[in-house]
């Protein structure tokens, strides 16, 4: 059997993706391949272009060059909501919950793109609509339970403590039933215990489904702990890729990121 770089078995692929902002290359010639079910980390110093990569994958920014393929389809120029419908979901670096809506409502929004009844059925109050609303509610509660947020279902999202808000973001993204989940600094601002819970949560997610996870983080211990593979980016360019052990001892990574002496955050 021929090894083809376009093989459909390559679940997700970015090839030579570049993003320029008026002459400044935020991301340059970035390529990566992710297989189904993998947990890969994306690390790099502040401003290295990590979130820009995420923004391009999810359609918030358009690459200046290169292409992005998902499940055999070129999604480079697709709109955000269409990319989510095709199975890529994300969380954000700065929490972007629907603040004034309840915890449960935040998750129920994720079911909107797959809704079958039209707005007319909703307006007319037809039983088909009632059945679908019930289904959406149950589906969303399931994800809240998985995240341990079920007791808080009717609290306003903005009233939740910070750590739980981050978990809600993840639950909300999971409710879109993605094939790939992008987590942008999910552990930011968490204390060590919350980080342990988060790591356990991510492990539970992986036990339940084959969702591919791509995650940006600054906490080295956290990343080394849960990631199977790590990609390192600096000044918009990929500088290393490999297992945690390989990365830990890679001299380029050490000099670029850790700056000689160990500045790793605990």
């Amino acid at each position, binding site marked *: 059997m021929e090894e083809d770089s376009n093989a459909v078995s390559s679940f997700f692929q970015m090839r030579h993706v570049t993003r320029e902002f008026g002459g400044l290359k935020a991301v340059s010639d970035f390529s990566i391949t992710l297989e189904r079910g993998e947990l890969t980390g994306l690390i790099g110093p502040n401003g290295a272009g990590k979130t820009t990569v995420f923004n391009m994958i*999810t*359609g*918030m920014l358009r690459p200046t060059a290169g292409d992005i393929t998902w499940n055999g389809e070129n999604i480079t120029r697709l*709109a*955000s*909501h*269409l990319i*989510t*419908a095709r199975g890529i*979901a*994300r969380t*954000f670096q700065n929490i*972007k*919950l*629907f*603040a*004034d*809506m309840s915890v449960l*409502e935040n998750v*129920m*929004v*994720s*079911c*909107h*793109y*797959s*809704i079958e009844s039209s*707005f007319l059925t*909703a*307006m*007319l*109050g037809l039983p088909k*609509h009632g059945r*679908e*609303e019930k289904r*959406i509610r149950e589906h969303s509660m399931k994800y809240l339970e998985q995240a341990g947020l079920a007791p808080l279902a009717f609290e306003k999202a903005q009233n939740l403590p910070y750590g739980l808000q981050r978990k809600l973001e993840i639950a*909300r*993204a999971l409710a*879109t039933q993605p094939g790939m989940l992008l987590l942008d600094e999910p552990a930011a601002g968490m204390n060590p215990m919350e980080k342990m819970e988060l790591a356990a949560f991510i492990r539970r997610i992986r036990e339940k489904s084959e969702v591919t996870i791509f995650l940006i983080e600054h906490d080295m211990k956290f990343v080394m702990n849960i990631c199977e593979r790590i990609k390192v980016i600096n000044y918009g360019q990929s500088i290393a890729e490999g297992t945690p052990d390989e990365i830990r001892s890679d001299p380029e990574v050490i000099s670029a990121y850790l700056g000689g002496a160990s500045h790793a955050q605990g």
Partner: protein
Amino acid sequence: MSKKLKFRLNVVSLVLLFGVLCLFSRYGSGYQVRILNNIAIFITLAVSYNFINGVCGLLHLGPNGFIAIGAYTSALLSMTPAEKEINFILEHAIWPIDVIQVPFVVSLVAAGVVAAFFAFLISFPVLRVRGDYLAIVTLGFGEVIRVLCNASQSVTNGPLGLKGLYPHTNLWWSWGVATLTVVVIQRLINSNYGLAMKAIREDETAARAMGVDPFRCLMVAFLISAFFSGIAGGLLAHLITTISPGLFTFFLTFNLLIMIVVGGLGSTTGAVIGAVLFAWGGEALRAVEQPMEIGPFTIPGIPGMRMVIFSLILMLVILFARKGIMGRSELSWNSLESKLAGWRRTRTP
């Protein structure tokens, strides 16, 4: 609260409303009936306006345009050819307007559909932008529509307007439409569609990331809002029996803004309350513009004072009580039940 109890409470309320309307339509004075009709039409307008501005978060400053479209559509369709002949004195009405005539109810539905159609046409430029730009573009469209009404002598009779419309609008029509509007729009707000719209209002980027298509969602809201505004326009036309382009200026939009801001931007209940207060307040404040006699003294009326007071109220609300009366919450049987339970708890020793 159980579904059965809610259903029964709803039926009882409707019966009560029916009864009140019966009473007024039989024994009420012309003045009272007119106020009630006004209230109902304002409720329809305010609830559909609040849907777009408050629930979806789009600052739409052009509802006057859709109301005008609805009013003219309904009027032109319900008038007899003879009545049109009398009105179109400068220029003959074009075909098929000069010969067409349909029953009132058909003209109302047509009013809504035509308004929604125009909304569809402009949704492409309007929904491409947000925030201030959207406000200005919708303001612009509202103005353009008014100017078009003024200039198309052979379609709308231009600045002369249409006179002598048959007063089809009665308490049953106006309150029937108002009830329908509230029920239908609230159902939509409570559905997953409503959640998607609120999500767009809260954080459009995050909503997109969760799979919500803002253009489709907002267009649905925009069309529905225009539809009900159009119908209300038709009701209005057949209530005051004379319409002209000067009726549908930005001033009308301003009045709607007052209603939904004072009531609470984002709350349907608030919109209803705002509409009632505005209709009632407008009437009550008319007294300020007439001379008043207090004992031996006569205080002269001050024309224009009404608007000064309204403007002041709007400013005061927006400066000091931005959330309005209801904020974003709704009054529902559930919320009443919990309030009642709360009172009971404080009373028992």
